[in-house]
C-alpha cells in the first residue's frame, strides 16, 4: 500500500479540548465563529463541548458557560462539509439524559471514551449509537497508564461493541515517539478497525508523536488550532496539517484556510496561547491528566504549596480523569506535612 497516497481523518478538538484551557467557558458566539472557519478549511470532524464531554458540566470538573444543547445546536448550524462530533464519557453522561438529545441536535460522530483500562463501561453507549445509525469511535483515555497488551485487549472490547475506530489519547502528554510507535503498531496488528491518536504537548512531542502514530499505521489524528487544549495543549493542528502535507498524506484540509482558522481562533477564542509551562512539564512527567492544570494551580495557591509537588503527589496516587476532588485532599495533606 503506497503510503504517500494514504488518506487521514483529522478531528479538530479546539472547541472541546480547548474548553479545558478556559475552564469550559467557550461561548456560543465563539463556537459559531470557529465552526465557520473550520468548515471552510475542510476539517473532517469538528468536536464541540465541555472539556470532559457530553453531560460533564458539573461542580466536580467545572460548569460550562453554555449548555450542551446550545453548544451543539450552534455548531450544527455552521458545519456543513465538516461533521459534528462529541466526546462522551459514561459515568458522566447517560443515554437517556444526554445521548438521545445529542442525536436530536444532529451530532454525526460519537466518540465514546473511558479510562484506558475500563472499556467495558462504554458497551451500552456504543451499542446505542450504533443502533441509531451513527458513526461511533471508541476512545481510550490516559493510555500511558496501560501497556500495549492491556490496551489492545481493551480496544478490542470497543471494537466488538461496534466502534469503527479506536483513538488512543495521551491525555497527560507523557509519551515519547517510541512509546507511540510501539502501542499503535501493536493495536494495528491485533484489531480490525482503524487506530487514531490524540496528542498533548507537555513534553514538546505533540507533532512528533502524531507523526510516529501515522507511521505506525494510525489513520486518524486529533489536533487543535494553535494547540488550544488542556495543559500544554494538543498537537497544533495547522502545523500538523503542514507537516502531513509535506510527508505526502492527504487530509482534504485546505492549508491556507486552516492557517486562517487558527488565526481566527487566536483572536476570537484564545485568551492565552498554550505554552509548555513548568507545571505542564511536571504534569506530563508525572502522567497526570492535563485537564487538572487549572484546578491544581488554583488549589496549590489556596493551600500555599508548590503546584509541582502537588502534581507529583497526584501522579503517585495514579489519579484518572475526573477526580478533581482528590486534588483538594492531596493538597491538604501536603500543606499539613
Amino acid at each position, binding site marked *: 500500500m503506497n503510503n504517500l497516497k494514504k488518506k487521514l481523518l483529522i478531528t479538530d478538538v479546539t472547541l472541546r479540548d480547548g474548553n479545558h484551557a478556559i475552564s469550559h467557558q467557550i461561548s456560543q458566539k465563539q463556537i459559531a465563529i470557529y465552526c465557520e472557519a473550520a468548515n471552510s478549511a475542510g476539517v473532517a470532524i469538528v468536536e464541540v463541548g465541555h472539556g470532559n464531554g457530553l453531560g460533564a458540566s458539573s461542580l466536580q470538573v467545572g460548569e460550562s458557560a453554555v449548555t450542551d444543547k446550545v453548544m451543539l445546536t450552534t455548531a450544527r448550524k455552521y458545519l456543513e462539509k465538516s*461533521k459534528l462530533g462529541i466526546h462522551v464519557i459514561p459515568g458522566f453522561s447517560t443515554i437517556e439524559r444526554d445521548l438521545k438529545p445529542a442525536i436530536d441536535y444532529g451530532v454525526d460522530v460519537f466518540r465514546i471514551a473511558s479510562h484506558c483500562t475500563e472499556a467495558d463501561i462504554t458497551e451500552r453507549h456504543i451499542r446505542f449509537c450504533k443502533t441509531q445509525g451513527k458513526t461511533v469511535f471508541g476512545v481510550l483515555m490516559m493510555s500511558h497508564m496501560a501497556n500495549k497488551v492491556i490496551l489492545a485487549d481493551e480496544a478490542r472490547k470497543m471494537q466488538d461493541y461496534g466502534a469503527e475506530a479506536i483513538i488512543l489519547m495521551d491525555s497527560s502528554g507523557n509519551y515519547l515517539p517510541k512509546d507511540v510507535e510501539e502501542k499503535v503498531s501493536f493495536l494495528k496488528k491485533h484489531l480490525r478497525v482503524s487506530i487514531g491518536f490524540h496528542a498533548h504537548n507537555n513534553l514538546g512531542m505533540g507533532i512528533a508523536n502524531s507523526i510516529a502514530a501515522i507511521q505506525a499505521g494510525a489513520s486518524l489524528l486529533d489536533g487543535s488550532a494553535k494547540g488550544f487544549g488542556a495543559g500544554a495543549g494538543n498537537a497544533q493542528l495547522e502545523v500538523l496539517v503542514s507537516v502531513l502535507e509535506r510527508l505526502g498524506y492527504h487530509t482534504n484540509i485546505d492549508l491556507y484556510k486552516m492557517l486562517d482558522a487558527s488565526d481566527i481562533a487566536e483572536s476570537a477564542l484564545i485568551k492565552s496561547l498554550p505554552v509548555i509551562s513548568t507545571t505542564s512539564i511536571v504534569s506530563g512527567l508525572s502522567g497526570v491528566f492535563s485537564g487538572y492544570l487549572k484546578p491544581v494551580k488554583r488549589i496549590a495557591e489556596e493551600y500555599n504549596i508548590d503546584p509541582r509537588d502537588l502534581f507529583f503527589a497526584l501522579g503517585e496516587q495514579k489519579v484518572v480523569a475526573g477526580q478533581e476532588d482528590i486534588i483538594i485532599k492531596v493538597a491538604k495533606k501536603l500543606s499539613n506535612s
Partner: protein
Amino acid sequence: MIENQNKFITNDCARSFSGAHKQLQSLKGKTLLVTGGSGFMGSWICELVHYMNHEKKMDIKLFLMARNQARFEQNLPHIANSKNIKFIYSDVTGSIVIPKSVNYIVHAAANPDSRFHASQPFQSMKTVALGTGSILEAATRLSNLENILHVSSSAVYSDKFESKEKFSEDLLNIYRDNKLSNYFSQANIYSETLCAAARSELRLPIVTMRPFTFCGPYQSIDSPWAINNFINDAINKRPIRIHHDGEVVRSYMYGSDLAVWLLVILLHAKNGQIYNVGSSDGYMLKDVAKKVANCFSEIPRIMLNTALVDNNNHSVLIPDVSKAEKELSLRIFTDIDTSVEKSVEWYKKQFKYAE
C-alpha cells in the same frame, strides 16, 4: 394452520423439512434435550419440532434447558403450552439432572452473544468449560442416549477474518497470533477438545458443528450481523449504511434450514465428525443490502463507504460445506431472496412497521 404458530414460520419449517424429510424420520418418537434453549438456535429447533409433531405426527419430546424461561415463554407462547415441549430451568454450570428418557442432546449453551464475551470473557469461558463438562458428565448416566451434538463456532478458524478462501473443517488454527488471546475463539477450541476427550474416556457419542452466519426470526435486531444492521436502518426509515465499499462477502443461512441441518447432523453424523453449518453461497454485502431495500415499498437509499475511516479488508467468512453436502445429503432449502424477505417481514411485525 398449526395452533398459534406464525403461518409463515410453518411454511418455513415445511419447506426446510421437505428437503430432508427422510432423514428426519429417525427422530420420530424420540426425546431431545437442547441446552441454551432460549436463543435463536433453540427457538428454531422448537418451531421445527412443533411443526413435525403437529403436521407429521412425529411425537417428538423436547426438553429445553436454559436460564431464561420468561424470554422463552414470551417469544414462543404457542410452544410454551405444548404438551410435548417442556422448559427445564437450569444453569449448566451447576449440577444438572437430565431426564432419563433423553435420546439426543444438542449442547448450544456455550455460545452467547460475542459482546457478552467481549465484556465478560472470564464468565463466558467458565460457562463454556464448566457447562460443557457438566452436560457431558450428566450424559454418561443416560441409558438411552444415542448421540450428542456439540455446537461450536466458526470462531475456531480465525480470530481475525483474514481469510480469502472458504473455511473447510481441516483448516484449523491457521490464523492465530499468540500474543493476544482471543477468548471466544479459544473457549470454543477448548470445548471441542473437551468433547473429544469425553468421547475417548467416557465413550460418549459426540459430533460437532461449527455454525457460521444466519438470518431470520428470533435474532435480535442489534446483533452484530450486517444483515440485521441493514434491516434496522430500513425499518427506522434511514438510508442503509454500509461502512465499507460493500464488497465484503458473507453468506446467510435461514433459521429453519439451520434447524434441519442441525437435526440431520445429530441423527446421522458418524461419531467424532465435525461439520460446518451455513451457506456456502457468498454474496457481497452491497447486494444483500439491495435485497433488503427491495422489501420496502419506499425503497431506502444504500450508502457505501459511510465509515469515515477506511476499514476495507474484503474479508470472506464463508464455510465450505461440501462435507455436510456429500456425507449427509444436505443442501440449502431456503434461498437468499426468501431468507431476506422472511427476515424483513418478521422484523416489520416485531417493530410494528407501517409502510
